[in-house]
């Protein structure tokens, strides 16, 4: 009940980074459930759907386009009900022409419309990557600020289950290296709602990397999150779980794995701090470094390939800014350096699992002279 009062008090003032700070002080989402009997649960799918719905209602310049987003209700049902509500002029089923329709989206954004371009998976976006990078990301710079591109590119990213090499690549590192793009990757329903709304309102191109497996997962959401003006800041990470011994950074599905690994490690006396990156670009180096200065150890987790990955960038950032605080070399957990295999057992080996995170954390903790 005290929690409800706290949220009520904040709602008046609205800056939601305060919300993030307060919720980070809680131990874990499960304890939130025990406090608020009134807290609802929402799947990531519904969170995304409601975010798009609300933003399209609020601003008639926002429209959705992609393959199967209309009559099929969305390849992953994210756009369910939107065609019925907004009509075929605002929810466009496109032919299978990624390069073409992405270019159309970018061109319409040049002069003020706000498209949401859905890619069935980000793998298919490779056929349109010319427009994402060359026409969208670089235009504000090339035109010296004359033409901004308020577009959102969204879709599932990374490995699903058994979909093999051409459907399983994680693109966070590729898009994250490009100036002119903002790259976001939500984990929970709250992240999905807040970050997508922020992305749609944003005047710059945003690449929004979702995860197919997370679509069906339900997370508790507070009344604050359900409010139509709920927006999360771009460029701020969230400390999902506070700890003192080691910092683990992750984004998207890996946050869930990291939290579970943290619970296992708690029993063995290792107190893990889990950071949900939320924003790949701009990367919240301040939060990461602050955390490492507290815990002195870092493990980065990602599903993508190791070379030039997100973990590589985080490691460098920490080495550059907090070298003296590190008690052990940075551990990187990434997907295997292979195209994704098909066989179920091979696929499990190619992607980080909870046991891998546990092992790496233990390695990071036992390498220091003090041991622990």
């Amino acid at each position, binding site marked *: 009940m005290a929690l409800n009062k706290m949220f009520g008090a904040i709602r008046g003032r609205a*800056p939601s980074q305060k919300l993030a700070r307060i919720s980070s002080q809680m131990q874990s989402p499960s304890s939130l459930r025990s406090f608020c009997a009134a807290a609802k649960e929402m799947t990531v799918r519904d969170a995304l759907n409601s975010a798009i719905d609300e933003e399209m209602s609020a601003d008639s310049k926002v429209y959705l386009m992609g393959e199967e987003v209309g009559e099929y209700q969305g390849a992953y049902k994210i756009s369910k009900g939107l065609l019925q509500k907004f009509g075929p002029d605002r929810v466009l089923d496109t032919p299978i022409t990624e*390069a*073409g329709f992405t270019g*159309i989206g970018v061109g319409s954004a040049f002069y003020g419309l706000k498209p949401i371009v859905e890619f069935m998976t980000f793998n298919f976006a490779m056929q349109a990557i010319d427009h994402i990078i*060359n026409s969208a990301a670089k235009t504000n710079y090339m*035109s*010296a600020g004359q033409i901004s591109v308020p577009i959102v590119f969204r879709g599932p990213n990374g490995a699903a289950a058994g979909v093999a090499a051409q459907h399983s690549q994680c693109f966070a590192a590729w898009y994250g290296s490009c100036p002119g793009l903002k790259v976001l990757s939500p984990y929970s329903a709250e992240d999905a709602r807040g970050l997508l709304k922020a992305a749609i309102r*944003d005047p710059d191109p945003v690449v929004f990397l979702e995860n197919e497996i997370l679509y069906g997962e339900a997370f508790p959401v507070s009344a604050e999150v359900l409010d139509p003006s709920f927006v999360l800041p*771009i460029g701020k990470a969230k400390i999902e779980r506070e700890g003192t011994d080691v910092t683990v950074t992750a984004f998207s599905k890996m946050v869930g794995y990291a939290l579970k690994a943290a619970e296992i490690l708690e029993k063995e006396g290792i107190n893990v701090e889990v950071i949900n990156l939320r924003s790949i670009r701009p990367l919240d180096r301040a939060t990461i470094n602050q955390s490492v200065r507290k815990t002195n150890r870092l493990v980065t987790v990602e599903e993508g390939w190791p070379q030039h990955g997100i973990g590589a960038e985080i490691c460098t950032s920490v080495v550059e800014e907090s070298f003296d605080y590190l008690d052990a070399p940075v551990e990187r957990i990434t997907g295997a350096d292979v195209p994704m295999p098909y066989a179920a057992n091979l696929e499990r080996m190619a992607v980080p699992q909870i046991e891998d995170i546990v092992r790496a954390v233990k390695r990071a903790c036992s390498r220091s002279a003090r041991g622990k």
Partner: protein
Amino acid sequence: MLFEDMVLGRSFEDMCAQMYYRGKMFGFVHLYNGQEAVSTGFIKYLKEGDYVCSTYRDHVHALSKGVSARAVMSELFGKATGVCRGQGGSMHMFSKEHGLLGGFAFIGEGIPVALGAAFKTKYEKEVLKNDKADAVTVAFFGDGTCNNGQFFECLNMAALWKLPIIFVVENNLWAIGMSHYRSTSDPEIWKKGPAFGMPGVHVDGMDVLKVREVALESIARARRGEGPTLVECETYRFRGHSLADPDELRKPAEKAHYAARDPIVALKNYLLEHKLADEAELKSIQKKIDDLVEDAVDFADASPLPPRSQLLENVFADPKGFGIGPDGKYRCEDPSFTAGTAQV
């Protein structure tokens, strides 16, 4: 008016060549000599508020659309007074106020973007209920682009959704050194229009009056809401693909054939023959343009280079890249928002 515009294009491009060889211009420069009739013939009949999207051969499209010669020349010199403050360069001319959607370096890249502007017009009309929305978009591209997938994707969608766009193919028969006939299974590009459900027109791109006829009709068609048109303009570039191209593969006979059909000379003869202007008038127009181009060069020369601080500007429209808060204002302007990461 047509004569003046074409002479402006030609003189400007000739001056560019001079400046390049003197070292004032650098990088990739693609000149438009010989193709002026296409640019003038179409763009001069657009309204203010219509859109033009181009390729890397975009100087003359910019000039015809109304960007000042000074701004274009400064941009080419890489100065801060250029149309894109020196950040775009020869291949990337953008002008929001003139509706110039850009020069794009990748061929075929500009076509979907142009289609997006046409889409926006249709959206404004149908969803935002703005009856005055009737802007027409013209997309210029070359013969090489007509073999690119994006071209076909856009023909399909333009006809499917009846978008107000005109696809203008500047068929100058050559990519860099690759002849159109060696790279295309069916070299008659205008035929590809009807395959997608839109009219395909072939016109002599060296004759500005013929181009004008086709332009007026297709612009009116698009403005009425009847959909796209594919116009193939047979034209020729008198210089190489770019200033770095030695232009050795094109036969002199071919070049001579088209040089004899120089659009500016043709229009001049027409005007004199039909007594629409006299020699003195045309000479004074030429002089006026020469002065204008000289002035542009002087202006560009005298302009300052972009300041160091400009390097990191304009990456995002949102000043520091942190997005917009729930109150609708930039988050980085909220005093309680901590600085974070978007700085170098």
